[in-house]
């Protein structure tokens, strides 16, 4: 009775293993975090009335669209990584996971480039509440991406040794990391539409 049950096995009455319930609860709290930020966005936009700038006035929609494609494809490759583990193909997993991390880093560098362009044109968060909420929202989102990259790289590098010892548990870890990553992509879909397109 020493080892913690249901870390890998699924518990009958809930049908889940611990980590999956844990990640879904964490994602629920993330929904509330971005909920708080979007409620701020809505309040600021309504408060600003008509002189709320269109997204396109400050933001380059083309780069934003490209970034959305990058994140969506990284979401798909993350899924492929998990699928290839399910098919016991460790080589494919390493490849797809590597691509996911690379795409995430690409997303961050494009984001960094966008930020530097803003600062070069002297658009700072303190200019108006649109830029303030833009930098805050995308900044928090970028922090989440960095967190995801750290976890994914650990699972790609040292963490993948667990594949030999406990393949089942390692597959679950990738699934859980995948759920987090899809959520980050889901938030970006809303963020991109709200900030760049409206």
């Amino acid at each position, binding site marked *: 009775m020493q080892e913690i049950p249901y870390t890998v096995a699924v518990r009958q009455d809930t049908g889940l293993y611990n980590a999956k319930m844990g990640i879904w609860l964490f994602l629920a709290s993330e929904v509330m975090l971005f909920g708080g930020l979007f*409620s701020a966005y809505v*309040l600021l936009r309504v408060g600003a009335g008509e002189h709320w700038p269109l997204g396109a006035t400050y933001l380059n929609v083309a780069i934003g669209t490209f970034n959305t494609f990058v994140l969506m494809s990284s979401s798909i490759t993350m899924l*492929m990584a998990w699928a290839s583990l399910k098919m016991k193909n460790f080589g494919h997993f390493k490849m797809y996971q590597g691509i996911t991390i690379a795409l995430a880093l690409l997303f961050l560098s494009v984001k960094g480039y966008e930020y530097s362009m803003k600062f070069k044109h002297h658009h700072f968060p303190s200019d108006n509440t649109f830029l303030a909420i833009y930098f805050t929202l995308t900044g928090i989102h970028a922090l989440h991406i960095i967190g995801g990259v750290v976890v994914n790289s650990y699972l790609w590098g040292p963490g993948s040794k667990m594949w030999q010892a406990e393949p089942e548990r390692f597959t679950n870890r990738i699934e859980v990391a995948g759920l987090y990553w899809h959520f980050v992509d889901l938030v970006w879909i809303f963020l991109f539409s709200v900030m760049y397109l409206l």
Partner: protein
Amino acid sequence: MIADQNSAQKEIRKYLLIFVVLLSLTLMNVFVSRLHLNISLTIIIVLSVAAFEASLVACQLMHLISEEKLIYSFLVLTVIFFVFALFIPLWGIFNPITGSTHVP
């Protein structure tokens, strides 16, 4: 879910299909935003397309469609409070004390 090889191929083909759908919907959104319709119309269209994309990601990629009842209860609870957190502050702005010069 992925029992053997050929159903695996089917799954992967489904994911790629979803990927293409997501890309096209995003492009459609960009196109709609360039039309410069009146602002509330664009908001409705763009947000509903984004919501559809998000549901695609959630149901298919995150397998929410075949998830346990317990996870649904957590998420329903969260969405209720999300809606409250989003719209009550707004209600506060649109319903000021009458007779006071309340500048939002």
